[in-house]
């Protein structure tokens, strides 16, 4: 088992190495194609004179000649950047010269909070719907569940968010505040925008909405697993052993459908990270998704590379955890 984990981690390191290089290459391409981001340093409302520009370029390592030739992978700046990251200095941003590590400290917790609520909603809702649909296979309920989950997936998540913010959030907040007062949990939870003073409360609703991303996939996975288990021989044996239906469902059926849930969460994790970009945009949450989006627009190389590498590490970490959970849940799976 240990050897497997080491092998997986080595593979992960290799993947991350490639990801880092790919991101660096894309940012180099961006500088080569879109021109020099150094002007951002001056707030960009007037072209700084060439000399100051050259000074700032050296500060950010943009003065290497490779940035003039389109397509040149700029290996030396890549090595410098790696050395810089290895020593723990994640570089600073062009606009406002802020330290990237400090920014991550602000952004990562916000996105994590969003994900916690999203994952809970996704697993809970799909578990209930999946089991319910499997229980009433082929009946009217089965079709409505399938229909609604597909509908939930067909509506882009940012449209659900926008309609929530524009139509529902404001009257709901006012109504809630009328009853429970502004400072109360209810007064804050429906707010249309994220508020740094209530980091947990104002992120519940966006989390739940992001949780609906991938609901159809998850419900289908669970329904299929439940169907397979419900019709399986060991459930028939369990019945023959005179166990109560509830115990059969919990001990035998749900336990066996944990595997697809883990696969689902592992698969949807990267999918949800995409959802975060829009959710954080609409709800004004200063999170990873939004930060990376703006950094890409502003050619903030350090922010983009570190941001995406962090999300890459998280995704890789999640996939290794998923594999280990497989082994934990299913004794038949053994890794050497």
């Amino acid at each position, binding site marked *: 088992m240990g050897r497997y984990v080491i092998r997986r981690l080595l593979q992960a390191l290799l993947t991350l190495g490639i*990801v880092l290089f790919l991101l660096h290459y894309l940012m180099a391409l961006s500088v080569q194609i*879109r021109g020099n981001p150094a002007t951002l340093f001056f707030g960009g409302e007037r072209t700084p004179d060439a000399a100051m520009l050259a000074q700032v370029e050296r500060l950010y390592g943009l003065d290497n000649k490779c940035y003039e030739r389109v397509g040149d992978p700029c290996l030396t700046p890549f090595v410098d950047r790696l050395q810089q990251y290895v020593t723990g200095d994640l570089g600073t941003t062009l606009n406002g010269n802020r330290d990237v590590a400090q920014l991550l400290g602000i952004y990562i917790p916000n996105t994590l909070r969003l994900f916690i609520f999203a994952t809970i909603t996704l697993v809970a809702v799909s578990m209930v719907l999946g089991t319910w649909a499997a229980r009433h296979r082929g009946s009217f309920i089965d079709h409505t569940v399938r229909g609604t989950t597909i509908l939930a997936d067909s509506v882009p998540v940012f449209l659900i968010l926008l309609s929530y913010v524009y139509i529902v959030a404001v009257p709901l907040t006012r109504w809630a505040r009328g009853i429970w007062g502004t400072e109360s949990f209810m007064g804050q939870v429906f707010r249309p925008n994220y508020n740094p003073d209530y980091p947990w409360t104002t992120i519940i609703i966006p989390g739940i909405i992001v949780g609906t991303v991938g609901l159809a996939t998850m419900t289908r996975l669970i329904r299929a697993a439940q169907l397979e288990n419900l019709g399986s021989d060991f459930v028939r044996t369990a019945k023959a052993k005179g166990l109560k239906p509830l115990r059969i469902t919990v001990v035998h059926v749900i336990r066996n459908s944990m595997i697809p849930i883990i696969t689902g969460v592992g698969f949807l994790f990267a999918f949800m990270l995409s959802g975060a970009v829009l959710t954080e945009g609409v709800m004004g949450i200063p999170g990873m998704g939004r930060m990376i989006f703006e950094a*890409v627009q502003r050619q903030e190389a350090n922010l983009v590379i570190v941001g995406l590498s962090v999300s890459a590490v998280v995704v890789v970490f999640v996939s290794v955890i998923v594999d280990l959970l497989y082994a934990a849940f299913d004794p038949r799976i053994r890794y050497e």
Partner: protein
Amino acid sequence: MSELTAPTPTAERQATLWSDAFHAMRKRPDVIIATVVLLFVFAMAAFPGLFTDKNPTTCIGRDAKQRPDTWFTGEHPLGTDAFGCDFAATLVHGTRPTITLALSVIIASALIGLVLGIYAGYYGGWIDGIISRGLDVFIVIPMLMGAMLILSLFRGRVSSDNLFETIAAPALALTLFGWMEFCRYTRAATLESKNLDYVVAARCLGASDRRIMFKHILPNAIVPVTAIVPTTIGGIIVTEAALAVLGIGVQPPATSWGVLLSKGTEWAGGGYVYLFAWPLALLILTVFAFATFGDALRDALDPKLR
């Protein structure tokens, strides 16, 4: 002696699989409705002229955002959009870029996925290693963020009315981050069918690798891939809309459903809900149709559930 053509039981077994699937699908009412919707949308994309004779680019600012007094009739059947162009025309002409984008992305990513998947599954060893690492790299970067990175290289694109230019950049970005799903399924199917007896038999009879791959293994690999094609198309259309809202997808004044939606969201709050409702309805209807079709196809093709 030319190599014997190994018995290809797969051929007619394959045929029955597809014909069975077709029969199973045809009988389901929801699939019929979904197919009708899809045909309607494809027709709108292919022949916009059938649906509206107005030119979406003739826009008069003065009569912008006018609701029609009677819906579906009169000079502007669906009223005018935020720039004063005929809303029905923009809606119809917006369909072609979206559908062409979706189809081109699905075909490109399916092809890449299939070829790489088969090579990885069949040869194994270091080829599989490289392709799997490639898979990991692209899976690890979330699709939307990857698309953003690629599309940020194309900023400042001149908006043009030529179809290819408007959708080239988003299509490339979505393909680059869309093939992994196909590759994974194909690779799994190839690994599974590689050691089946008839494939081993074909190899014993001296069939070349390429022949085995594309004559024997491909029909098996096609099954799981086809099962996820419709739902993936739905996903691409939704992602295109997301890109448009972020302002990095299809660039206005070229239209697509995503652009219409992002413009619609701006004016939805101000009481012009119809600017937002029509493109949303069209998008949801199409994606829903694709998803239902995909679900039915998956059930029909999945031997266990049949």
